[in-house]
């Protein structure tokens, strides 16, 4: 479903991603962890063609992103839904209209669209809010609208960039439970997050740790660590000033 080989990306002199390789099958769930600036958002942006592939290869839902034509990008995005930390919904439209938007774009019939929107809105507990304007909703509700909009089209892949960043712990856990529910329908998911707690609550999920654009940790053999990682770590150890305590290993990261 997702196949990334030696993917690198730079912004001028700065390498945001370095030699990233991993594979995910249909219905698998991956956490992308790492500090701010590690390259998580860049990687997600590459996966839905918001950025062009510069080096390496990327294949998402049968689309080769290296050679994707501009006219094919909407077709890719009909298979790949994205959820952002800042929701990216239309505040001046109702919950119903926001969730309906991807179906309108696809030209689905009104009856069919209505049925699907109502089902997803109900599944996300928004049925009583469906006629309200999104601007009138709380942050948690807005995030649920964004998730509803992502899932209403039964995407093959869901990318979520810090989806719990604006939510409290309780709402974050509920949102992840929703993701897991939808994963059961066969959607492959990549969730970028800082939260160690979220990853701890889903030990069955795959995890990749990114640092400085490199994979520095992963909990399954489908991901390849940065080739020069060992030498680089050794060099860091030599040049770094002595630390009073050893740094803690990231949760779930290992191989």
């Amino acid at each position: 479903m997702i196949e990334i080989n030696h993917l690198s990306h730079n912004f001028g002199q700065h390498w945001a991603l370095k030699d990233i390789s991993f594979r995910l099958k249909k219905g698998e769930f991956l956490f992308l962890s790492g500090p701010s600036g590690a390259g998580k958002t860049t990687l997600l942006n590459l996966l839905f063609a918001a950025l062009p592939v510069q080096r390496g290869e990327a294949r998402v839902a049968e689309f080769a992103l290296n050679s994707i034509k501009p006219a094919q990008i909407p077709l890719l995005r009909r298979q790949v839904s994205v959820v952002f930390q800042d929701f990216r919904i239309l505040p001046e439209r109702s919950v119903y209209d926001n969730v309906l938007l991807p179906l309108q774009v696809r030209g689905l019939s009104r009856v069919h669209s209505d049925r699907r929107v109502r089902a997803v809105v109900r599944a996300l507990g928004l049925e009583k809010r469906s006629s309200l304007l999104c601007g009138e909703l709380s942050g948690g509700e807005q995030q649920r609208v964004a998730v509803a909009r992502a899932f209403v089209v039964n995407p093959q892949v869901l990318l979520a960039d810090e989806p719990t960043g604006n939510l409290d712990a309780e709402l974050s856990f509920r949102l992840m439970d929703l993701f897991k529910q939808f994963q059961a329908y066969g959607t492959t998911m990549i969730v970028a997050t800082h939260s160690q707690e979220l990853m701890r609550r889903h030990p069955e999920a795959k995890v990749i740790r990114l640092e400085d654009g490199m994979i520095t940790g992963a909990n399954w053999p489908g991901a390849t660590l940065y080739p020069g990682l060992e030498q680089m770590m050794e060099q860091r150890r030599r040049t770094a000033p002595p630390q009073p305590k050893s740094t803690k290993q990231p949760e779930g990261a290992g191989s």
Partner: protein
Amino acid sequence: MPRIILRLIGQGILGLSINPWAQILTLTAVILVSFLVGLFLMAVTTLDHQLSMASGETSFQVYWRPGPDQAQSDEISRQWQEIQDIPGFLHGRTFTPEQALKEMESRLGRNSTVKDLTFIAENNPLPPTGLFAFSPPQDVQNLDYGIWIKDTSQKLWDLPGVEQVSVTPLRDELGQAWRKVNTYIMRPVIVFLTLLLGLIIGNTVRLALLSKSHEVEILQLVGAFNWYIRLPLLVCGAVQALAGSAIALVLLRFIHMQIRDVLMFPPLMLEIRFLTPEMILLMLAVPALMGLLGGWVGLKR
């Protein structure tokens, strides 16, 4: 697919309510430009019509001495009949001093402070006049044309009581001059104004796109094709152009009704003509197309 397109067209029309001030300013600019184009086209139509009507004609404006007595007036009336027998006569229009005074009174119009000229009727200073159109005989070559004018002019001068004869040149020559003006000035100006129209609408469409950038970003995110995003904006541009040119046409029609006869006096005798049906269609279709084109270019930039 037709359902989507209809919905997007509807969205485009509703989109006119976004940035209302910008839309109103654009509409005003479109009306102004369309109005100017319409005025130029009206001038073209009027002159073309006049030239086609009077093609090959030479006009002689004849003035008799003012203040004729009854016997002289009878003589002048007889001369007007005689003039029609001169070879090459096409048509003529004559004014007795009384007719000229009435014409003048009507020309002064409602806005004039002098509404009644009867106080000068007894000592009417206006002369009897006539505008006579002649066509040169077929065998007259370019070189002889001047001689023919001189001869005809002399025949008119020789009529008793004639004080002045003025001649307008052959309308074919005027026609050629007009065609040059049309080719080198009028048409480029109309093309320039049409391009200006596209530019104005293109900028407004671009402004609408910028103001909707958040929505556009979300539409792109959920897999909308560019045409899906652009069609409402293009429709918005085309509707603006269509509405602007329709309003301009209504204004032109109103103004035409007011000024239709203002040049209807000797020696001009010009009736200002309104646009032909083909021109009206062009005035509606071209701005709408320019609206689409300008919008498309605006979105491409």
